[in-house]
């Protein structure tokens, strides 16, 4: 038995249990093949074209490069409409993010992604300052708006709080722009 296995007899079953295979979502096939539309059949017959599959691979590569010019450009959902972003997030996660609709004139919504189980990432610009907002569910025991924790993370500043059984963390690159970041949800008179 290799040395790295000998000394970890308790860890191995933990890892094997934790890393079991999962079932691939049905959507994966849809992203690869082009089945014919047939509402009468419960299981559409699977067909695909080789040329379409290769073209998809090429298109995916081009898109990946094209999106590369925009920082943080890979999102599950891209939109500059705060109402659409809010609806998408609610449909995907059940979280209700009180984004200001319509957005404040200084705010440009960019998009959102589901980043971990139960958490969502929203990015927007507030007067040319990139803002990252992370929201997840929080337990009932957290005080509403009372606790704010502010930290410096690498070259950014973040502030965290809980409200409405949801936990929020907003991050910006410079501490001076944290108030601008609040415009994503709040009017200028309230910040």
């Amino acid at each position, binding site marked *: *038995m290799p040395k*790295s*296995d*000998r000394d*970890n*007899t*308790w*860890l*191995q*079953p*933990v*890892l*094997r*249990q*934790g*890393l*079991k*295979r*999962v*079932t*691939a*979502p049905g*959507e*994966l096939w849809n*992203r*690869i*093949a082009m089945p014919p539309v047939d509402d009468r059949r419960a299981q559409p017959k699977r067909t*695909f074209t080789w040329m379409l*599959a*290769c073209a998809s*691979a090429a298109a*995916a590569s081009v898109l*990946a490069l094209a*999106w*590369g010019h925009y*920082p943080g*450009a*890979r999102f599950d959902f891209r939109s500059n409409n705060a109402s659409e972003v809010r609806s998408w997030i609610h449909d995907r996660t059940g979280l209700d993010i009180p984004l200001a609709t319509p957005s404040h004139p200084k705010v440009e919504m960019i998009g959102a*992604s*589901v*980043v*971990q189980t139960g*958490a969502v990432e929203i990015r927007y610009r507030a007067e040319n300052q*990139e803002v*990252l907002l*992370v929201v*997840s569910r*929080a*337990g009932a*025991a*957290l005080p509403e708006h009372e606790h704010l924790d502010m*930290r410096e*993370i690498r070259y*950014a500043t*973040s502030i*965290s709080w*809980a409200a409405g059984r949801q*936990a929020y*963390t907003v*991050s910006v690159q410079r501490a001076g722009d944290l108030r601008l970041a609040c415009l994503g949800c709040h009017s200028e008179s309230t910040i």
Partner: protein
Amino acid sequence: MVLNENDRELIEACQRGDPEAFALLFDANSDKIYSIALRYAGDEAAAMDIAQDTFLKLLSHIGQFRSDAKFDTWLYRLVVNSCLDHQRRKRKLRPLLDGLLDAVCTVHETVLHELLRQERKEAVHDVVAKLPPEQRIVVILRYMEDLSYEHIADIVGCSIGTVSSRLNRAHKVLERRLSHLRRQGGTGRA
């Protein structure tokens, strides 16, 4: 026909462009490919991208697969390369807030869950997803796919000693971060 990823007839049918054969091949391997992608990337959206990329590469390159080679090794290499490509693309596409999301999520969890004073059992897959890429992939191939050191070395393109070294380093991190899951009497496998 009994499905087996090394089934020569199925592979040859795919190479001839038989759509039904590819569907069977997909069915036989989709869970494996998606699971590896998910444990590597740590999120479903990225796992879908990686798995899609892998199967599209399979479609594009299956004509180059040599019948004297082992198909499963070839397929493992495809998904491993897709995982590493994704890692490289992710780094390039987020220059401005590079790494910030990971840091913010960590802070987010740290601040709020400390407030709640709840003990969080960190899921194995969360810990594995935070390993360095080269350690992560060997852990997944070893413990999800139960591959030998020799087979992993063949897939990843390194020596058996390197596989052992990477696993050893990964075990040290995993032992520390998963120590709360330790149970008495756990047994290992040879």
